[in-house]
């Protein structure tokens, strides 16, 4: 685009747009409301169904509010076998995954964004390319490798499986956040004689906090939701995680208990929402600190 033409456009509109476009605000708010309505609908339907008795679940005319409000689905969901044990396993594995994935990811991302060394591009391409393999194809080879290494049926094995799955992605995303930081930061610090470790831990790592948080949501959701790896890599049922419990509401011999399934899904989603709301503050704090201004 030509600079002059582009430069002229703002001037033409200046009067209308200054100082804060309130009409734009209205449009934005309307769009946001519309988006919220559409996007929340499936979630709302899940919650709605969770409070319905079975005979109200499928009706020709939809019931947008439970006509016969009931909590039995939630009771059934919690008393379904192994809920507490599976919950505990999930919490252990997911928090383990988060800690390891973030620690390894942030180091690797720093190396791949703030240092220059040979083979860097190759590593980047490899990290990206390994994500292109369909995960279904990788399950059996991974299973065999984990079996060889004695990692089946251990928390550590599942944690490492998830770390391996989310790490390439995490490195890529965190690297993006590192790249967004101005180099003047380190240069100034180097002039002051700060060590590499100091620069990393005191200056860079705190600044990529929002990136770390964005990545951790992804890792959390991935590890929290995975069923197939948890189901195949854990042999003992006392080691199963919550998604396995979530799968127990559907059997050929009793059909699918929709109310129970939806109630369980609501319970299952809650920790993710809570996790996000908890780190949401940090996210905002990290951003509003204005540290990035350089």
């Amino acid at each position, binding site marked *: *685009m030509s*600079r002059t033409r*582009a430069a002229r*456009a703002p001037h033409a*509109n200046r009067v209308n747009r200054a100082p804060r476009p309130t009409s734009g*605000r209205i449009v934005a708010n309307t769009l*946001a409301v519309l*988006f*919220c309505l559409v*996007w929340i609908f*499936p*979630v709302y*339907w*899940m919650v709605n169904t969770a409070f319905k008795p079975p005979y109200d679940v*499928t009706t*020709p005319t939809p019931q947008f509010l439970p006509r016969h409000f009931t909590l039995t689905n939630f009771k059934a969901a919690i008393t379904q076998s192994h809920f507490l044990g599976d919950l505990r396993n999930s919490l252990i594995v997911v928090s383990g995954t988060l800690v390891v994935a973030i620690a390894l990811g942030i*180091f*690797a991302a720093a*190396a*791949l964004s703030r*240092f*220059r*060394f040979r083979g860097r591009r190759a590593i*980047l*391409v*490899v990290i*990206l*390319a*390994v*994500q*292109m*393999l*369909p995960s*279904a*194809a*990788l399950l*059996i*080879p*991974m299973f*065999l*490798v984990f079996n060889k*290494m004695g990692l089946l049926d251990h928390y550590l094995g599942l944690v490492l499986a998830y770390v*391996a799955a989310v*790490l390439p992605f995490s*490195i890529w*995303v965190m690297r*993006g956040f590192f*790249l*967004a930081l101005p180099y003047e930061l380190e240069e100034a610090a*180097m002039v002051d004689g700060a060590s*590499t470790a100091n620069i990393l831990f005191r200056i860079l790592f705190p600044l990529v906090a929002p990136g770390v948080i*964005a990545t951790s*949501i992804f890792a959390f959701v991935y590890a929290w939701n995975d069923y197939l790896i948890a189901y195949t890599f854990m042999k003992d049922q006392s080691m199963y995680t919550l998604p396995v419990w979530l799968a127990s509401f559907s059997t050929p011999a009793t059909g*699918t208990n*929709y109310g129970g399934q939806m109630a369980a899904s609501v319970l299952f*989603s*809650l920790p*993710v*929402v809570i996790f*996000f709301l908890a780190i949401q503050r940090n996210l905002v704090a990290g951003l509003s600190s204005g540290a990035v201004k350089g």
Partner: protein
Amino acid sequence: MSSPTATTVAVGEPVAAAAPPRRPRRQRGGRGVKRSGLAPLLLLSPAGLVIIALTIVPIGYLIWMSFTDAGQRMLFTGEYDVVGLQQYRDILTDPSFWKSFARTVGFTAAMVGGSVLLGMGVAQLIGKVGRVMRLALTFVLICAWAMPNVASSMVWGWLFQPGYGVGNWLLTQTHLFGDVTDTNWADRPGLAFVCIWMLIVWQAVPFVALTLHAAQSQVDPAYYEAARMDGASEWRVYWTITVHFLRPTLLLVTILSIIWDFNVFNQIWLISKGGPDGATSTLGVYAYRNAFVSFHFGVGSAIAVVTTLLLLGLTAFYVRSLVRTGEEL
């Protein structure tokens, strides 16, 4: 209020325009903390070990299996035969493979386009609306993201099932399409795809929007203030400042979406099983039908290798520019 020079620079190089203390970035050859030394190796090795041991080695295994007829027998008894390139020949000469491939490319483009554009829009909305609305938006996004797959695919089935579908009911109420209560979306090629597209975009937008929003909020507000002071329109500000800063993240999100949508399988399988008559049979469905139901790991591995190479070929341009974008910054 606006000096011509400032505006001119803002278009081409908004960073420099809005951040006076910052020096031009392109001059230096070496960037980063240190150029060499052990530091990067130390930083990389933990992640590298994990990736090599738990991803690269299984991939090597997979490639090797693709030259064998490995199946359940191999797992149970250790027996298998080496079949060389036979499986690759079979796949590459199978017309339905190429049809699935073409379909996959089209589907991927539609799904990636949908999720990235909508995600950009929503990320922008988050920044534009008031505090309450912003919280509502993030809450909705995270709820959609948090909803487990088993629930969302079930609810999707509900929304669009014939007879009792809530979506069908709502559409019928609008009187725009006539009575569609008995329509089975999964049974009509076009509608099946629309249904799958909606589910995937619905699931993908939260990630795209929140990631872009996080990146977007790292942009120094001073740039915006400067541009607005120059009287730049909101669109102009968006394209010249936001998109400029978002470029690496945007590229990243796009390529990740391409990778994910290219390999998408579960959602398609749950909604249409690749039907009707193969209309939604993508490479994921092809692989599942030909290898994973019957546990023909050898065939499955060969399909995975071919698929991955095709995807690499298709994205080579993006991968290159992604890596280069990173280098330039």
